[in-house]
C-alpha cells in the first residue's frame, strides 16, 4: 500500500510539473489581465492582482471585433487542418506503402519547401493570391497554411504508418476492402494518435501564423486573431493588461476544446479500431 501511495504521489507530481511548465506564463497572463498598467509598473512586482479590474476585458470587446477575429482564426485553422491532414495522409500512405519510385526524392522535395524562409516568399505569394482572386478571404490563408504544415504532417504520419503491420491491411483487403478502404478503416484508426498529432500541429501552426495573415488577409472581415490582437498595441505602447485579456479570451477556450476533444476522439478512435 505505501508503495502504491508513493506511486500516486509521483504521478501527481509528474502532472504538476507538466502543468506548471505550461501554465506558468498562462497564469501570469491571466493575473495580468486583471491588473491595471500602474500595478505592472510597481516595484517590487506583484503576482496576484492587488485590485482586480474587469476593465481590460471590456476594452477587449469594445476596441476590436475580437469574436469576429476568433471566428476567422478558427475557420482558417479548421479548413487548413482538414486540407493538410487529408492531403498528407494520402501522400504519406503512398510513400510508405505503395511502390512509388523515387520516394526518397519526393520526400526530400516536400521537406525542402519547409526550409525556405517565408519572409522572402512574401511578395510573389501575394501576387499568386491576388491573381487567384483570393486576397482578403479565408482561402488566402487556408492554402498556404496547409502547405506550411504539410511537411511536418507527412513526416509524422509516415513514422506512424510504418509501424502498422502490413498483415492487417492485407487481411482487410482479403475481406474485400480496397487500398483506400484499408487506409480509412484500418490504418487511420490504428494510427489515431499520429493523425491527431498531425492535426493538432497543423491546427496550431495555422492558429499561430502571423506574417501571412498580416499580408494576405489584412482586412477586418477576414482578419485572424494574432493580427487582430496586435492591434490593441500602439506604435509605442504595449498595453499588457489588455493584450493579456485578449489572449485569455482567445487562447484558453481553444486549448480546452483541443484538450477535451483529443481525449474523447483519440480514445474513441483507438478503441473503435481495435474492435474492427
Amino acid at each position: 500500500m505505501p508503495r502504491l501511495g508513493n506511486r500516486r504521489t509521483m504521478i501527481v507530481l509528474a502532472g504538476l510539473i507538466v502543468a506548471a511548465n505550461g501554465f506558468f506564463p498562462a497564469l501570469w497572463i491571466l493575473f495580468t489581465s486583471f491588473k491595471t498598467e500602474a500595478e505592472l509598473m510597481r516595484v517590487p512586482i506583484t503576482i496576484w492582482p492587488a485590485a482586480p479590474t474587469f476593465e481590460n476585458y471590456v476594452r477587449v470587446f469594445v476596441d476590436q471585433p475580437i469574436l469576429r477575429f476568433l471566428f476567422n482564426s478558427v475557420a482558417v485553422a479548421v479548413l487548413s487542418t482538414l486540407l493538410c491532414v487529408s492531403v498528407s495522409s494520402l501522400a504519406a500512405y503512398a510513400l510508405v506503402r505503395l511502390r512509388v519510385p523515387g520516394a526518397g526524392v519526393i520526400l526530400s522535395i516536400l521537406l525542402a519547401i519547409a526550409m525556405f524562409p517565408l519572409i522572402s516568399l512574401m511578395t510573389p505569394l501575394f501576387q499568386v493570391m491576388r491573381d487567384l482572386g483570393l486576397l482578403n478571404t479565408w482561402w488566402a490563408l487556408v492554402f498556404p497554411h496547409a502547405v506550411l504544415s504539410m511537411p511536418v504532417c507527412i513526416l509524422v504520419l509516415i513514422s506512424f504508418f510504418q509501424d502498422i503491420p502490413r498483415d492487417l491491411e492485407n487481411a482487410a483487403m482479403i475481406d474485400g476492402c480496397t487500398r483506400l478502404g484499408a487506409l480509412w478503416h484500418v490504418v487511420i484508426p490504428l494510427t489515431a494518435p499520429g493523425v491527431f498529432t498531425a492535426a493538432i500541429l497543423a491546427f496550431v501552426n495555422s492558429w499561430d501564423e502571423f506574417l501571412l495573415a498580416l499580408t494576405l488577409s489584412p482586412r477586418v472581415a477576414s482578419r485572424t486573431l494574432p493580427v487582430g490582437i496586435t492591434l490593441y498595441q500602439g506604435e509605442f505602447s504595449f498595453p499588457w493588461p489588455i493584450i493579456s485579456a485578449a489572449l485569455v479570451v482567445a487562447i484558453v477556450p481553444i486549448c480546452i476544446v483541443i484538450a477535451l476533444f483529443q481525449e474523447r476522439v483519440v480514445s474513441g478512435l483507438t478503441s473503435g479500431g481495435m474492435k474492427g
Partner: protein
Amino acid sequence: MSTIKHRLTPLERSERRLGFAMLAPAFLLLAAVVVYPIADLIRASFTFLHLAQPWMGNPFVGFDNYAKALGDERFLEAVWHTVLYVIVTVPGAVVVGLGLALLANKPFTIKWPVRLGLLLPWALPLVFSGLIFRWFFEYNQGIANAILRGLGFAPLNWLTDPTLAFLTICLAIIWKASSFVALVLLAGLQTIPKSYYEAAEVDGASAWQQFREITLPMLRPAIFVALIFRTITAIQTFDIPYAMTNGGPGNATETLAMYIHKTTVDFLDIGYGSALAVLMFIVSAVITSGYLRYTRRDPGRH
C-alpha cells in the same frame, strides 16, 4: 527503398498508379502555392534588385550577391549565432520535450489539465511568447530579477548582456518548442503496447532498463520527426529573439532570419536578401539530408 529491379506484377503496377494518384493532391497544392514564389526567389538571388533604387533596374549579376554574402561580416556573425541557437535549442527542446512527454504519459485520472499544460505553450502565438519572456527578464519589472533581489543577490542585465541574452532567448525557445516535441513524442508513446512493459516487469527490468530497452527504441521514429523539424525551425529562428532583444545588444543575438528580414523588409534590398534566403535554404538542406541519410541507412525498424 529496394533497388533491385524486377518486373512489376499487375498488382504492383496498379499500386504504383494509385500511389501517384495519392501524391497528386500534395503536389497540386505545392504547385499552386509555393512553386512560383520559390522560383522567383531563386531568380531574384542572381539579380540586382533594390526597391529603393528602381532606376538601376533588375540586371543579372551572376553570383555577385552570393560572393557579397561570404564577405559580409554581419552575415557570417548571423550564421554563427544561428548555429549556436541550433546547437543549444535542438537537443534542449528534445530532452525537455521527452521529459514532458514521459511525465504526461503517466496514468492520470484527470488528463485534461496535463494535456492543457502541454498545449498552452504551443498555442500561445510565438510573437507573444517572446514578449512574455522579455517581460520576465526585464531589469526592473521582471520576475527573474525580483527573485534574485528576494534572495539577496544583485539584479542581472538579462537582456543587455550578450551571453545572458543568448541564454534567456534559448530558454524561451526551448519552452515554446518543447511542447511541440512533447506532443509528437506523447503520440508515439501511446502507440507502444502496454504488454511490452508488463512483460519487462515480469522479467524484473528496472524503470531505467524499460526506458532504454523499450521506450527509446520504440520512440525513435517520433524522436527523429521531432529532431528534424526542430532543426529546420531552429535554423529559421526569428520571432523570439526579435521580440526579446531585437538582435541586441548591438547585433549580438541576431539570427540569419532576422538579418534576411532586415535586408528585405527594411533595406528593400531584394536581390541580396534573396541570395541570403537561398543560402539559408542550402544550410537547412545539408543538415536535413544528413538526417535523412542517417535514418535511411538505419535498419532498426521492427
